[in-house]
């Protein structure tokens, strides 16, 4: 494809994205506070100044968006009337609070919100103006839209959002399940999640993207996660979109003093998926653990870009990212770790491990360490390989067929990440998915 035709196609998708800025009928235009309107118009200004990234942009080198440019995505025309039975298979028994968005629209009949004093587990449009006003300091303040087209578009579109505000010193015993469901092909949706964990609070959240059809659609998701001092948050991010979908996402985490953040990001679906995950240590002594697994096959592409920003001293970060790639699929991992001047006693370890299941499968992995402090401990490493022939032989020598041996080893490779998920029913579901998805790989 020549450059000129790439540009022409880019302009097309871009106009279509902007055309989608109108509100879907059936969703009464919420009366948004002035600060939110201002935020959205600022984002819209940036949208018009930005272009769709191309492989000439360093951050998109291995992720061409040509396929994304061809289909036409529309805003939702008519909401799907889903009932509880339709999503029964997606619910998690451990999660007593569930927020469900269908094709981008909040579905109160499927959700169980909790809007008590202090604690907010609900949707932005459903909040009182007093509750909403507390969000001004956070919404749009962590996920930068200044130079990121998809985040800018998400922010410009911002009609509603999943909102979790946990007051200080409170611990939620049960995980909160935030479910973004696609039911209609051709639709573009712009899911948004804001989580504010008050000082010394504790919470587990499951951010779950799933489809009830196998068609093509576009999910453009942004999450912002704020941990105030000593807060502890575990976030499971599950991308199990249709394999025809396009999933562009960013998640910006802000870590306060001595806070602890753990995430497990699983990418299974979408023909092209991209996750930009940033964790900023904004105060001393914070800890973050980022675990990731991309399990893809066929012609899928899964790209994870992470950025761990040690801006303050005594921070700890741990990252293990794994990719299992079959068919002609491609995985991309770029893991940037920045230790800023003065961030002494930073302790960071990053590992990228990749398993290629076929000769045509590809992975591009790039750890990127930038250290501007002298008293730090930082390690990183990357491996790319196929299944070990000694391991295969060991299992076969016990009577297991080559196929079963291959599946078992592949499963074991992925299970190391899945085992970090603190929700048993979800862990079992995913273990089953990995077993099924690794069956029949060439």
């Amino acid at each position, binding site marked *: 494809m020549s450059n000129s035709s790439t540009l022409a196609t880019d302009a097309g998708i871009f106009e279509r994205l902007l055309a989608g800025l109108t509100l879907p009928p059936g969703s009464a235009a919420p009366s948004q506070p002035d600060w939110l309107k201002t935020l959205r118009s600022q984002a819209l200004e940036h949208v018009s100044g930005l272009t769709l990234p191309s492989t000439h942009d360093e951050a998109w080198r291995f992720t061409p968006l040509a396929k994304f440019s061809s289909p036409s995505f529309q805003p939702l025309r008519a909401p799907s009337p889903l009932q509880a039975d339709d999503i029964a298979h997606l619910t998690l028994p451990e999660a007593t609070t569930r927020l469900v968005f269908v094709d981008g629209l909040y579905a109160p009949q499927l959700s169980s919100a909790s809007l008590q004093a202090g604690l907010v587990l609900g949707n932005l449009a459903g909040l009182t103006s007093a509750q909403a006003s507390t969000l001004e300091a956070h919404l749009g303040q962590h996920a930068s839209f200044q130079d990121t087209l998809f985040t800018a578009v998400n922010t410009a579109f911002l009609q509603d959002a999943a909102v979790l505000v946990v007051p200080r010193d409170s611990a939620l015993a049960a995980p909160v399940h935030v479910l973004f469901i696609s039911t209609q092909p051709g639709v573009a949706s712009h899911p948004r999640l804001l989580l504010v964990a008050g000082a010394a609070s504790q919470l587990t959240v499951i951010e779950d993207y799933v489809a009830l059809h196998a068609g093509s659609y576009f999910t453009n998701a942004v999450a912002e996660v704020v941990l105030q001092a000593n807060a502890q948050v575990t976030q499971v991010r599950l991308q199990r979109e249709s394999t025809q979908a396009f999933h562009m996402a960013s998640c910006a985490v802000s870590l306060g003093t001595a806070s602890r953040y753990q995430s497990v990001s699983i990418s299974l679906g979408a023909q092209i998926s991209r996750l930009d995950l940033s964790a900023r240590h904004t105060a001393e002594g914070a800890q973050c653990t980022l675990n990731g697994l991309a399990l893809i096959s066929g012609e899928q592409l899964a790209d994870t870009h992470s950025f761990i920003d040690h801006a303050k001293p005594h921070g700890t970060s741990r990252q293990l990212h794994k990719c299992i790639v079959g068919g002609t699929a491609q995985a991309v991992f770029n893991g940037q770790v920045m230790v800023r001047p003065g961030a002494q006693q930073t302790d960071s370890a990053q590992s990228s491990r990749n398993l290629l299941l076929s000769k045509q499968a590809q992975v591009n992995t790039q750890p990127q360490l930038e250290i501007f402090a002298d008293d730090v401990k930082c390690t990183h490493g990357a491996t790319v390989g196929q299944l070990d022939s000694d*391991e295969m032989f060991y299992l076969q020598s016990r*009577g297991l067929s080559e196929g079963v041996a291959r599946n078992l*080893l592949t*499963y074991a490779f992925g299970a190391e990440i899945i085992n970090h998920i603190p929700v048993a029913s979800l862990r079992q579901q995913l273990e089953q998915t990995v077993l099924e998805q690794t069956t029949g790989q060439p």
Partner: protein
Amino acid sequence: MMIQNSPTLLEVRGLRASINGIEILKGLDLTVKRGEVHAIMGPNGSGKSTFAKVLAGHTAYQVTGGEVLFKGKNLLELAPELRARAGVFLAFQYPIEIPGVGNSQFLRLAYNTVQAERGKDELDPLEFDDLVREKMKLLEMSPEFLQRSVNEGFSGGEKKRNEILQMALLEPSLAMLDETDSGLDIDALRVVSQGVNHLANKDNAIVLVTHYQRLLNYIVPDYVHVMSAGRIIRTGGKELALELEERGYDWIEAEAAGALA
């Protein structure tokens, strides 16, 4: 035990095998009958472990000549898993660790696969649990090892016990133990040897690949073979192992070279 007129289990004739173009086995002959215990000894690099792996079907090795008959059938044309199901078992010198796969799950999968091949009933997890705990007593293994991942974080001795546990479950006709004694302390050696002796019977055969005479105090061989440069150059009774312990391998290699010249 040697038994009169016992049927031949394994017949190896002129076996040659290479890895990465380097020939390791250079015309190896060996006959094993049911009920027998054989020990294969020899200096480092003589091809002992290679021989065991080639019989089990390791794909890194290319067989370039000779034949292997197991129960009268050509073993070399079978994939490793089919050899295992036919009754060939290799206890590994370095058993691999498989984090993420439960030992119990793995053992049951292997057991049921082999049972199905033999037309016997497969066991559900509860039934299998009873069976495996029974077998673990024999090896003085804690049931706790069932909950862990395959060999993950096991000590050297625990890994070897786990190998013999697999042998006990799969009940092979031909068990090859590749340096099972290496890295074992005296207690572990005793337990593992007792386990192997318990499993030996008139229908199966055991081939011990070992460096040291020590193991043969516990598992007494009917035949001791000396390997050198990819062939068996001397076969004797258990007293040969004692002689090797005392005199080393040089004299026997020199004699063999002299006989050839």
